[in-house]
């Protein structure tokens, strides 16, 4: 019998359940991801995608099951800055009086002292991250003045500055321009090579085929999980979306 070494998994979620005041949002969900894997999280609105993310980051408590991050608890993953969460554009208060620099610096907060005074290394990490997402010209621009794509890149830079080994991205491609999409896909290849693990939710089926090694189809629980080529079939997608045919979802040619 083969023994499983849990250290090998970046994310290991076992039979997790989440409920909000008795309302079940997610049940018996499993997910295992190794370093360098990119996994797409696909499901309808309200299927539990955000809940899944929240459980992994520890933003909500799971009522059942077990989550291991790099073989450790969620709590210690938080302490080690292991997971970075990149919110969807709609989840941000864009009127907040804060600049690109401030946002990216927030990626360093977890490893700073209590006053959150940036050290030289923090400043350097922030500069590097901003350069990688090509926002060096917008260091002091308030986030409200950025385009949707630029804002997405600012939050990606925050995740880079955090030096997280796991990236959770909520709808990374929604409302972004071509240039940002190209930059994000280049970053994905770099992240993969660096051994980072990426879990991204998306509505866009084309992006799943293009970027994801694995796909997790959910509708309150896992409908199907595995290699994209095997699992991402019209039948599974139809089940995930409550009986709606994939033709309707992403065109008849698929």
């Amino acid at each position, binding site marked *: 019998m083969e023994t499983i070494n849990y250290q090998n998994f970046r994310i290991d979620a076992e039979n997790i359940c989440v409920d909000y005041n008795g309302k079940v949002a997610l049940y018996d969900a499993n997910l295992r991801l190794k370093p360098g894997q990119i996994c797409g999280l696909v499901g309808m609105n309200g299927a539990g995608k955000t809940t899944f993310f929240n459980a992994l*980051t520890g*933003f909500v408590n799971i009522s059942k099951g077990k989550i291991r991050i790099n073989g450790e608890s969620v709590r210690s993953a*938080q302490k080690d800055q292991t997971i970075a*969460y990149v*919110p969807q554009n709609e989840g941000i208060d864009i009127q907040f*009086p804060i600049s690109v620099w401030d946002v990216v610096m*927030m990626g360093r907060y977890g490893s700073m002292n209590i*006053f959150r005074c940036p050290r030289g290394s923090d400043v350097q990490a922030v500069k590097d991250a901003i350069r990688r997402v090509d926002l060096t010209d917008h260091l002091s621009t308030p986030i409200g*003045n950025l385009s949707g794509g630029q804002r997405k890149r600012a939050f990606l830079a925050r995740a880079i500055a955090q030096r997280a080994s796991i990236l959770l991205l909520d709808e990374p491609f929604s409302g972004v321009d071509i240039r940002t999409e190209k930059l994000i896909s280049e970053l994905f290849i770099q992240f993969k090579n660096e051994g980072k693990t990426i879990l991204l939710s998306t509505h866009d089926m084309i992006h799943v085929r293009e970027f994801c090694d694995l796909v997790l189809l959910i509708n309150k629980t896992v409908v199907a999980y595995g290699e994209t080529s095997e699992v991402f079939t019209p039948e599974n997608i139809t089940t995930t979306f409550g009986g709606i045919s994939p033709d309707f979802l992403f065109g008849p040619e698929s």
Partner: protein
Amino acid sequence: MELCSFLTLDSFITDPLTHDFMRKALLMSSLVAAVCGFLSSYLTLKGWALMGDAVSHSVMPGVVVAYALGLPFSLGAFIFGVGSVALIGFIKQKSRVKEDTVIGLVFTGFFALGIVLVSKIKSNIDLHSILFGSPLGISLSDVKQTIFISLLVVILLSIFRKDLMLYCFDPRHAKTVGINVFFLHYLLLTCLSLAAVVGLQSVGIILVVAMLITPGATAYLLTDKFDNMTLISVLSAIISSLIGIYVSFWFDLETGGSIVLAQTFIFLFAFLFAPRYGIFKLKKLFAGYKR
């Protein structure tokens, strides 16, 4: 005599300073304004205006009970302030009633309890000064309390300035990187209760919420930088207090109301003429003029 004094701005400002109670009122109200203004930028960004209203009204029975028992009134106010928030959270979780409704019914309930208590406990409680503030009649023990609480709030807010900013902006990220969001939530609530306690001496329970939201709202219209927002908020709060007290002295007006009105006028000015976010966008007007 009053008309003569108006002839020089100098005496308009210095004459009131010859009175001991005026010096004290100006100092104390500026301090209180600074504390409320500091907190104000967090509350407006977090969207806690209604929460500020709730907490400030809910402290009423606490103040009355503390007076009756001879305890520091800030203690009673603090307990009821935090208690009201806990009760709001509890009712919201255990019932289907919407949050704004719960907030409304809890704080009015507490407030009503306070008024009933005042009428029952026939002591030397001055209802008027609780409701409308009495910066001109502040006692020495109140001065000590106010200074202590104000310093405490300023120190707490200064230490956790950036964490609180992150908490208001993106609590999910804060939690993800291991920052104690639960602690920050209650820290902000505690500061809110304490600020309401000191604020009510200046402008009274009914208007203290203005001290907690108007300076922040004004600053929000004037800047896109968080640090500047805090600074502008504090400054506009202090200036409003000074204007309010002077105006109330010379024209014999209710002091608390005058302070809040001054804040409202400053807000309206920002609303109309803020460089970027004002109705008339002064920046554009100037730019057009230069051309």
